[in-house]
């Protein structure tokens, strides 16, 4: 309560009326005061309290500068007689030493309450909250008292950063300006990002060439460098680049296009397929080929057509389940089945996911392997509530 000053109820130049309410009393902390049944007027900068009519006559009234307010909260009191009413609590800063005289000089409380017979209206409450949050006084109160000083500042030039900041935040216009500036900044950032992308696209071919050079270098050195995993990993990554992707535009007929494409796929995937144990699902093929091609992406359909044209060391194979894979021609079903049987024997029985994990291949391929081994009578299945497992085919070959 000791933050209040006696002030004439007049608006400053840049102060704007915000809201008013009637029948308001002020509490100093939680204690009632003699200031009851008054009228409050909220401006952008201050809160006035006067007896009815005083504010209208511009008489001397109680005034609280809003810059003393730290925060606002509300409490709802319900009483049997008066119904529900809302009180507002304003938490205040320590009074400044140069404060003008007010109704109370000392108060142990650092908050006041505004209340009334029927509480304060919702409109006034929300106006109060918004005004306090807006903190317009921070912007304007400072240059106000010394108009001479502000003039001299202006004469020194308008690029004083403090003043610029003030300008930016002044009023609705200021808010609009700052929004505009932000939008422009975002725009610039996006443009810059796309500029980068354009540069990247222009450079793509060179980048692929560089990676090719590095990969051959690594390959040449492979004999000397130990089989370090990082080196292997790098060479693996770099081997993905295709220098000159086959594109449809360069071919007059589809069949020529697919034949060239098939050849390129074959060159690209021969090593990876061997590494993966001789088989690669078409989904993996699709990902790898397109990753290697970079920006000249292939459609799944074109890839399939090309794969159907394959007739070198790699062949397209369709399993009875419908799954399609690229498979090395040297890859023999008997061999795969025998290999799979070994794995199953070693663990007594295997589920699809267990084999996939052990061999580091996809679930689809693991399942096809097991099914292929089953078709050759090497393993047999156990279907139960625990899922599908495969066992060595003891039913046929118990002694083996």
């Amino acid at each position, binding site marked *: 309560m000791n933050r209040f000053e006696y002030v004439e109820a007049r608006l400053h130049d840049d102060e704007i009326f915000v809201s008013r309410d009637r029948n308001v009393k002020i509490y100093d902390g939680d204690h009632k005061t003699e200031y009851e049944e008054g009228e409050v007027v909220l401006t952008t900068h201050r809160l006035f309290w006067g007896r009815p009519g005083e504010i209208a006559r511009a008489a001397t009234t109680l005034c609280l500068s809003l810059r003393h307010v730290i925060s606002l909260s509300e409490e709802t009191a319900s009483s049997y007689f008066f119904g529900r009413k809302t009180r507002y609590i304003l938490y205040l800063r320590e009074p400044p030493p140069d404060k003008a005289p007010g109704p109370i000089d000392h108060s142990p409380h650092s908050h006041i309450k505004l209340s009334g017979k029927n509480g304060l209206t919702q409109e006034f409450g929300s106006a109060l909250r918004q005004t306090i949050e807006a903190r317009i006084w921070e912007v304007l109160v400072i240059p106000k008292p010394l108009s001479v000083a502000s003039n001299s500042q202006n004469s020194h030039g308008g690029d004083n950063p403090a003043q610029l900041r003030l300008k930016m935040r002044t009023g609705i216009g200021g808010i609009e300006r700052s929004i505009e500036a932000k939008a422009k900044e975002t725009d610039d950032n996006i443009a810059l990002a796309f500029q980068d992308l354009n540069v990247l696209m222009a450079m793509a071919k060179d980048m692929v060439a560089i990676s090719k050079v590095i990969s051959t270098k690594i390959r040449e050195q492979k004999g000397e460098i130990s089989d370090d995993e990082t080196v292997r990993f790098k060479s693996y990554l770099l081997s993905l680049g295709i220098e000159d992707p086959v594109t449809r535009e360069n071919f007059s007929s589809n069949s020529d296009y697919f034949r060239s494409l098939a050849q390129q796929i074959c060159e690209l995937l021969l090593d990876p397929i061997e590494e993966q144990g001789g088989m690669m699902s078409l989904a993996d093929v699709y990902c790898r080929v397109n990753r290697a091609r970079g920006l000249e992406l292939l459609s799944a359909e074109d890839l399939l057509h090309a794969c159907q044209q394959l007739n070198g060391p790699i062949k397209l194979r369709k399993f009875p389940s419908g799954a399609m894979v690229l498979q090395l021609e040297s890859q023999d079903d008997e061999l795969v089945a025998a290999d799979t049987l070994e794995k199953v024997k070693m663990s007594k029985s295997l589920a699809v996911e267990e084999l996939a994990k052990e061999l580091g291949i996809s679930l689809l391929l693991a399942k096809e392997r097991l099914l292929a081994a089953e078709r050759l009578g090497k393993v047999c299945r156990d279907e*139960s509530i625990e899922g599908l497992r495969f066992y060595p085919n003891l039913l046929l070959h118990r002694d083996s």
Partner: protein
Amino acid sequence: MMTEFEWPWEYTFPPFFTLQPHEETRNQQIKVWSDLFLRYLKYLNKFQVNINENTFPLFNNDAIKRRLSPETITVILEQLQRTGHAAPLDKRRIEWQVYSYTLEEYANMVYDWIQQTGQLNTICTLYEIASGENSEGTEFHGVDEAVLLNAFRTLENKGKCEVVQLDDSFGIKFF
């Protein structure tokens, strides 16, 4: 006292309970099952099974938590039917009659026994043949009367006997 039934090793092999898609494996599997069916049912002197009887040890190995599905049981029973060791008792093929000898084999056994004991041209009751003192020690002693009756029907078709209804039982006259 009955001795413990000796299960084949397959009975503890989980895939044995799943009908195998691989043809050769499946044939072998069904063969082992068929033998097991006949052996186990003979051991229990049981002649009738229900494919939904899922706690029956023949269909269900609790130790490894595996059981035959009704479909697989049907496949095995159909195989037994082809070799003359089983016949469905209802249209939905739920209840089955299963016998370790074929009906013809039973019929011949009984006929030989009748001949040897000089009972041709006299009427014997079904009970006498299946459970009577005289037939003790023969392979068909203790066989389900319904199974024997079916066996005599085949014999009747060949004109070697005649089945006559006696109140609530049957009498058979062999020629």
